[in-house]
C-alpha cells in the first residue's frame, strides 16, 4: 500500500487530497498535514473584513470532512522534508510538529511515497516594520485578521457617526507584494459599506499600492476589447476609483507603518508619508520556511527551495532579462527537478520570474507586483498533480496532466460591494494567466477570451461561487461536478 502526504489544507492541497482519495480509493493512503483546525475559504474573508459575512460562513472544521473521505488528518505543521530518508529511516519522510492542543509541540515523522507541498504563503509581515495585526495595520488574509479589521472599521464608523472624519488606507504593505486583487476588493467593499452606513462623506479613502499602474494586479494588467478600443485594465480601475471618490498612490514601497501614518518610498526614489486612522495593508508572501535534509542529515534547503522559501519545480529558473522571459519558463507538472516524488502546488511553488515587469527605485528598492497564484490556477495545479500521482500509483500508463499557468486562464470576480440588488463586482476572465508573446505577439493573451465588466450580475456570480466552493470543499453531494 502506498502513501501520499499532502502538506496544507488550503485551496490547492485540499483539492489534491480530495481527488487523490477519490481516485485511489482504499488501495492507498492519503494523509493531510495542516496546522489549523478549520478550512477557510479565503476569498470571502473580504466580506468578513467589512462585516458583510460572519466567520462561520467562511470556515468549517476540516477533520470531519477528512473522516468522511477516509483521509488521515494530522493537525500539525510540516517542519522538514527528508526526501532520501535518514540513517535510521529508509523511506523518505516529512517531520511534523503538532499544533492540535492535546499534542501541542509533539514531533513525528510521516513516511511517504509521494509528497505534495501545498503550504501556501507565509504572511511575511516582518518584512516591513510595524506592518500587520501585531503592528499598526490590519489584514484580511485569515479569518482572525478579517474579524479584527472589521472591528476597527466598525469603531471608525461609530466615530464618524459622532461627526469625526476618518482616513482609511488600503493596499499593499511592501514593494514586493502580490494579491492586489484582494486589496482592490477590500477598498471597494469598504467604500460601499461606508455609504450604506451613511458616513461616506466623513471618510477619506486612499489606495496605496506597489503596482506600476492601477489595474496591474501582478499580471501586467489585462487588455480588454471595449467600446471600439483595446483598453488596459488601468483605465477601468482608475475610472472605478474616480467614480467612487477613492484617492490613489502607486509605485510605492512601504518602509514603515507607524501608529497613524505610513512612511514610503516611490519608484522615483522620493520619500513620503501618508496619515491614516485605519489601515488594511496586505503583507508580502514568502514560503513557510520548510527545511530539507539529505540522508546524512546535511541541509539541502537551498537546493530544494528558492531564496524566498518557495519550492523549486520544473520551471526554468535561469536568470534572464524581462525581454527574454518565455511562457515556457513556467512549470507544467509542479514536480521537483531532483526528487520525482516531490511536488509543490498553489502559492508554494517558486515562480520562475514575475509576470509584471520588475522595476527598482534609484536607491535599488524593488517596487513591482509579484505574480499572483489565485484560487482557480491553484486548484487546477492540485488536481493535475493528484491525477499524475494516482496514475503512477495505480500503474496506469497515461500521459501526465500539465497545468501550466501559461496554458490556463483564470476567472476572477472581484467584489465591489455586496448587496442582492445593489451590489456590484468586476467579473473578468484572462487567458492565459501568464502571457505568451510567441502565441499572441501583441498583447500576450487571447483577447477573445479576455473580458471584464462591472455589474450586479458579477456580484451574483461571486456569491454563487462562494456557496459552490464551500459546498465542494465540504465534499457534499456532487462536489466533483463543481469545476476548480
Amino acid at each position: 500500500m502506498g502513501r501520499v502526504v499532502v502538506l496544507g489544507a488550503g485551496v490547492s492541497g485540499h483539492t489534491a487530497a480530495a481527488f487523490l482519495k477519490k481516485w485511489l480509493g482504499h488501495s492507498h493512503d492519503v494523509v493531510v498535514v495542516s496546522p489549523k483546525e478549520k478550512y477557510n475559504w479565503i476569498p470571502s474573508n473580504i466580506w468578513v473584513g467589512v462585516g458583510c459575512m460572519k466567520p462561520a460562513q467562511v470556515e468549517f472544521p476540516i477533520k470531519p470532512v477528512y473522516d468522511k473521505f477516509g483521509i488521515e488528518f494530522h493537525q500539525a505543521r510540516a517542519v522538514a522534508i527528508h526526501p532520501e530518508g535518514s540513517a535510521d529511516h529508509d523511506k523518505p519522510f516529512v517531520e511534523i510538529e503538532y499544533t492540535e492542543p492535546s499534542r501541542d509541540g509533539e514531533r513525528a515523522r510521516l513516511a511517504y511515497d509521494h509528497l505534495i507541498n501545498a503550504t501556501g504563503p507565509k504572511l511575511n509581515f516582518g518584512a516591513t516594520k510595524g506592518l500587520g495585526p501585531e503592528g499598526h495595520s490590519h489584514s484580511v488574509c485569515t479569518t482572525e485578521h478579517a474579524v479584527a479589521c472589521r472591528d476597527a472599521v466598525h469603531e471608525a464608523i461609530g466615530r464618524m457617526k459622532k461627526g469625526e472624519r476618518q482616513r482609511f488606507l488600503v493596499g499593499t504593505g511592501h514593494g514586493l507584494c502580490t494579491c492586489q486583487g484582494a486589496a482592490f476588493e477590500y477598498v471597494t467593499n469598504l467604500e460601499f459599506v461606508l455609504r450604506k452606513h451613511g458616513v461616506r462623506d466623513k471618510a477619506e479613502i486612499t489606495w496605496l499600492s506597489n503596482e506600476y499602474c492601477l489595474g496591474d494586479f501582478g499580471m501586467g494588467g489585462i487588455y480588454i476589447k471595449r467600446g471600439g478600443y483595446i483598453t488596459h485594465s488601468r483605465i477601468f480601475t482608475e475610472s472605478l476609483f474616480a467614480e467612487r471618490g477613492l484617492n490613489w498612490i502607486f509605485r510605492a514601497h512601504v518602509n514603515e507603518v507607524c501608529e497613524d501614518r505610513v512612511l514610503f518610498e516611490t519608484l522615483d526614489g522620493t520619500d513620503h508619508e501618508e496619515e491614516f486612522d485605519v489601515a488594511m495593508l496586505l503583507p508580502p508572501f514568502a514560503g513557510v520556511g520548510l527545511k530539507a535534509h539529505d540522508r546524512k542529515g546535511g541541509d539541502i534547503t537551498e537546493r530544494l527551495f528558492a531564496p524566498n522559501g518557495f519550492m523549486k519545480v520544473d520551471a526554468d529558473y535561469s536568470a534572464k532579462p524581462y525581454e527574454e522571459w518565455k511562457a515556457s519558463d513556467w512549470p507544467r507538472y509542479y514536480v521537483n527537478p531532483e526528487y520525482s516524488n516531490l511536488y509543490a502546488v498553489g502559492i508554494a511553488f517558486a515562480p520562475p520570474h514575475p509576470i509584471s515587469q520588475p522595476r527598482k527605485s534609484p536607491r535599488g528598492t524593488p517596487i513591482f507586483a509579484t505574480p499572483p497564484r489565485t484560487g482557480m490556477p491553484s486548484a487546477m495545479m492540485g488536481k493535475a498533480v493528484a491525477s499524475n500521482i494516482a496514475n503512477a500509483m495505480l500503474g496506469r500508463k497515461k500521459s501526465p496532466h500539465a497545468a501550466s499557468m501559461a496554458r490556463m486562464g483564470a476567472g476572477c470576480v472581484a467584489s465591489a460591494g455586496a448587496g442582492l440588488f445593489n451590489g456590484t463586482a468586476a467579473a473578468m476572465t484572462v487567458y492565459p494567466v501568464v502571457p505568451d508573446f510567441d502565441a499572441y505577439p501583441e498583447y500576450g493573451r487571447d483577447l477573445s477570451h479576455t473580458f471584464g465588466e462591472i455589474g450586479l450580475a458579477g456580484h451574483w456570480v461571486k456569491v454563487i461561487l462562494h456557496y459552490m466552493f464551500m459546498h465542494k470543499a465540504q465534499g457534499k453531494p456532487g462536489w466533483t461536478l463543481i469545476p476548480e
Partner: protein
Amino acid sequence: MAEIGTEGVKVVSPKFAPRPTGWVVFLRTFLPWQLFRFVWINLKMIHMIRLSHGGVLPGERKH
C-alpha cells in the same frame, strides 16, 4: 510620477480618469439587463474553464 497628471504623489479627484455615463451606471444594476449579463458571464467562464482544462492553447497540439 508627474507624467500621468498626478497632483503630487497622491491622486485626488482626478480630472483625467474616464467616468461612466449615467446610462452605464444605471445598467449595472438594472435587473433585466443584469439577468442577461449573468447568463453571458457564466457562459464566458465555462468556456474559459474548458479551455484551461485542455492544457494547451487553441490550435496547439498536446505534448
